[in-house]
């Protein structure tokens, strides 16, 4: 008798199985490695950046919020008001943070603007990438990303407000990690907008007309969570509103950190990117787990006799399941290890470049992240194991006798599907498709995913451009000037209007317009005369499912006043969620004088209007910020997604068509013995798979469209945009079909090669 020192000998065949099926395993391995590399690279980068970002709240002493006043008020006076605020332990310290807004022309383009601050030392301090902070008059530090986007170097000069300033450094500013010029903007613009910093002395030398009296606050209690900080900010805002009013002062802006897109967008976007990428990874892993299970099913069918013998000899179901799960698990583990290495090396750099190309982030340090490892490795392997285990448990739950008799059908009664009297070859193909339906269903799911990804990557930027065109086509006027105070103009083409920003129940910004009677600009609808009746933009109507006749409530953003209006009609104005009323009703509703107005509509630039009276100007280029920025930010990601979709398509079809051929190897061999040639056999099996592919592609197109339209509408809502029509161009569908046909065409050569290789002896061996 020998000592019992034998390890399970079945282990020895795991590597041999992988070698035997190397085509399948290598393709899955490469795909998984690629996927895990991307996701791990993205996660490591974004989690490291988020870590740096979170640390930056204290490191750079990020504000808890800021506000602006209509006139100059001393910090001491504001501090006194703040100290009266009942905010529990959250005592706010007020900091002066005045800024100038300058528009300027750069390289012939007049759409540039800079927000100029004096150097910061106490709050919202910045990190210097290159050069140094301004030390003397005429020196200017600007945003690193803006400099990069405009190819500006240290020593270059920017001219605004009649002064030439020399760039001395590029910086990342914590309260502008995302370069939103205005919080109401749908998208940031890191190409045309930058923050700038000059010395405190030099700051005083700019035109006061462009000065905004802005203040930032910082709570002393650093243990406040987001909710508590938000509540404390609300208390501060209410106290300031009340206490400033008696002196005729008021807040022109109040923005708490949680609502400030320039601060929160970066983190939310990284969070969103991370979540959607992880979700995509998990869906892909689930699909691959099914493919692995189908591969194993086909191996089990081939090895049924041996499995029956092993089970009859006393091998437990668990031992057999573990054995058949081993190869996919090892391949997956190898892909996870190499994928993570790839993620930390190659793809991290790619993702880092991508994030740095979108956001003004401070220098970050890559930290090994257990969470990234958990999300990219532990959870995917758990998904793989669970799906494989459940699938195999069901199949290997059959009795040893079933295996010995090669009777692996779960259903006791085998139904033979009756087919119409088609030609023999057609019936043969239909039978092949029916026999392999689980493979073809999995293939259809894979094709659907690949096509969703392809259509998304190809259609996203055109949809953005369509939306911009839609906005531009439906502008009330080419230019909207907002004034600091009413100023009369001689130009008769300009038309007065009133505007204020309120919010709906969900806190979403709503622009409220007062329109002149018989407006030259807004001609699609006439304003209702009844007080309290309004016309609303279709986008706002759709967003909240409003109907004509509904009464809606709109509230002050920085106060506690509420207004109720009845919807009298709507029209297409996609630029912003807006409501419109006559200018008389507007002034009456908001308690303004009858001749009050806040700005001008004009189809041409109003050169007569003195810059010092203009608070802001919205021209056509301002409406294309979203598409410009998204084109810039997503431009790198979209081709990657397109390649990924094609890889998914090829791998799914390659693996599943291979399984179908292997499963039918004996039948193919037998048909060869009967005298069929390879071409005839190809006509049966390759065309069966081709039919399945074509049907899957045909089904996937409308299904992808429905799924994508829902996804894209949801995505745009996060940018405060309601998409009226998501139009996916016919050319994109044509591209999908062509790519799918080309890929399948190439794969059918591999299938034909495989058919040719199946020997006639295949039918003769293992005959039992």
């Amino acid at each position, binding site marked *: 008798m020998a000592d019992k020192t034998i390890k399970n*000998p079945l282990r020895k065949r795991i590597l041999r199985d992988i070698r035997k099926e190397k085509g399948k395993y290598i393709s899955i391995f490469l795909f998984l490695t690629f996927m895990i590399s991307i996701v791990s690279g993205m996660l490591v980068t974004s989690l490291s950046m988020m870590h740096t970002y979170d640390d930056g709240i204290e490191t750079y002493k990020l504000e808890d919020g800021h506000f602006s006043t209509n006139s100059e008020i001393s910090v001491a006076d504001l501090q006194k008001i703040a100290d009266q605020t009942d905010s529990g332990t959250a005592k706010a310290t007020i900091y002066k943070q005045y800024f100038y807004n300058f528009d300027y022309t750069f390289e012939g383009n007049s759409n540039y603007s800079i927000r100029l601050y004096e150097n910061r030392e106490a709050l919202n301090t910045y990190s210097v990438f290159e050069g140094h902070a301004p030390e003397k008059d005429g020196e200017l530090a600007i945003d690193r990303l803006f400099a990069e986007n405009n190819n500006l170097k240290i020593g270059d000069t920017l001219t605004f407000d009649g002064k030439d300033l020399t760039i001395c450094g590029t910086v990342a500013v914590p309260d502008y990690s995302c370069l939103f010029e205005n919080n109401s903007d749908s998208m940031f613009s890191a190409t045309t907008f930058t923050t700038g910093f000059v010395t405190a002395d030099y700051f005083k030398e700019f035109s006061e007309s462009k000065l905004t009296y802005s203040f930032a606050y910082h709570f002393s209690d650093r243990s406040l969570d987001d909710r508590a900080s938000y509540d404390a900010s609300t208390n501060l805002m209410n106290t300031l509103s009340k206490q400033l009013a008696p002196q005729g002062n008021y807040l022109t802006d109040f923005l708490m950190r949680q609502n400030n897109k320039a601060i929160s967008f970066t983190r939310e976007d990284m969070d969103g990117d991370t979540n959607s990428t992880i979700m995509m990874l998990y869906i892909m892993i689930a699909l691959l787990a099914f493919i692995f299970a189908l591969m194993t099913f086909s191996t089990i069918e081939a090895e049924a006799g041996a499995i029956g*013998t092993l089970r009859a000899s*006393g091998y437990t179901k668990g031992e057999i399941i573990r054995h058949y799960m081993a190869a996919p698990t090892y391949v997956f583990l190898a892909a996870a290890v190499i994928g993570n290495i790839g993620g930390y090396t190659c793809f991290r750099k790619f993702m880092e470049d991508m994030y740095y190309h979108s956001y003004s982030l401070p220098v970050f340090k890559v930290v090994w992240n257990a969470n990234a490892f958990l999300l990219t490795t532990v959870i995917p392997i758990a998904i793989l194991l669970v799906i494989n285990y459940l699938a195999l448990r069901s199949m290997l739950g059959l009795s040893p006798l079933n295996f010995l008799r090669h009777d692996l059908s779960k259903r006791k009664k085998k139904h033979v599907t009756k087919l119409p009297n088609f030609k023999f070859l057609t019936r043969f193909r239909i039978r092949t498709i029916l026999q392999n339906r689980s493979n073809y269903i999995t293939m259809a799911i894979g094709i659907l995913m690949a096509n969703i990804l392809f259509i998304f990557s190809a259609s996203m930027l055109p949809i953005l451009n369509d939306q911009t065109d839609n906005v531009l086509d439906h502008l009330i006027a080419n230019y909207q000037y907002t004034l600091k105070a009413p100023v009369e103009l001689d130009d008769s083409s300009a038309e007065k209007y009133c505007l204020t920003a309120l919010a709906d129940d969900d806190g979403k910004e709503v622009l409220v317009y007062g329109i002149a009677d018989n407006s030259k600009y807004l001609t699609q609808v006439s304003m209702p005369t009844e007080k309290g009746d309004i016309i609303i933009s279709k986008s706002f109507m759709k967003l909240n499912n409003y109907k004509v006749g509904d009464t809606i409530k709109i509230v002050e953003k920085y106060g506690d006043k509420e207004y109720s209006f009845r919807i009298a009609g709507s029209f297409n104005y996609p630029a912003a969620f807006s409501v419109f009323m006559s200018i008389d009703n507007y002034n009456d509703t908001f308690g303004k004088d009858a001749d009050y107005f806040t700005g001008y509509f004009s189809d041409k630039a109003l050169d007569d209007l003195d810059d010092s009276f203009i608070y802001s100007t919205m021209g056509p280029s301002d409406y294309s910020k979203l598409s410009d920025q998204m084109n810039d930010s997503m431009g790198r990601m979209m081709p990657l997604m397109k390649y990924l979709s094609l890889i998914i398509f090829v791998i799914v079809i390659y693996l599943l068509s291979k399984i179908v051929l292997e499963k039918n190897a004996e039948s193919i061999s037998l048909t060869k013995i009967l005298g069929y040639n390879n071409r005839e056999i190809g006509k049966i099996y390759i065309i069966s798979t081709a039919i399945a592919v074509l049907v899957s592609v045909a089904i996937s197109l409308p299904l992808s469209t429905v799924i994508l339209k829902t996804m894209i509408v949801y995505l745009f809502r996060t940018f405060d945009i309601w998409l009226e029509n998501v139009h996916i161009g016919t050319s994109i569908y044509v591209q999908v079909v062509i790519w799918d046909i080309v890929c399948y065409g190439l794969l059918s050569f591999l299938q034909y090669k495989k058919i040719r290789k199946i020997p006639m002896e295949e039918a003769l061996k293992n005959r039992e």
Partner: protein
Amino acid sequence: MFLQINNLEKFYGEKDNRVQVLKGLSTGIEKGEICVLLGPSGSGKSTLLNIIGGIESYDKGEIIINGAAMSAMNEKQTTLYRREHLGYVFQFYNLIPNLTVKENIEVGAYLGSNPLDVDDLLHTLGLWEHKDKIPSQLSGGQQQRTSIGRAIVKNPDLLLCDEPTGALDYNTSKDILKLIEDVNRKYGNTIIIVTHNDAIKLMADRVIKLRDGMIRKEYTNETKTPAMELDW
């Protein structure tokens, strides 16, 4: 008795399609005996073997092996019983295609708490020179030897052989039967052979002839004929 079978009944199908394949069989087999189950196709011999092997259930009666009643065993215990006490040989060798001869035998050795020495066994089986070959490089006889090696390496109390020579030619069949005989002599296992080859009954200690689910005849051989002297 090492193996006791009492009033064993087995049905297939349900309702109108219900067919009785074993009709109240009772018999017993002593430890160390070679028992040959003979009968035409459909007589119930393979069903009986599978029930003894615990891979098929029965409807009435009882089987007691070495004092343990099979009816009292649940699925786990049945697997354990097979693992510890049974070796199986089938007409088709069911070897694992990408394991070598030695590794295929180790697949059986892994299950036993006190397995035989694999190298010794390879010599006994006449497979030493072929130990590193994979099944597709072997003849049918060599493959069946390997499957016998896999079944006996864990030194089972009971070796069940279902048509072990059914796929082999005359000479190879005799070689295999001699091997079974040698194994029985050397290791003392109880062996049940299912066959429809009437000549094999001569090498058995006990012969049970089945027809239509019933024992038609059962007897012990006073003198056994060595396997190599069998003729058919």
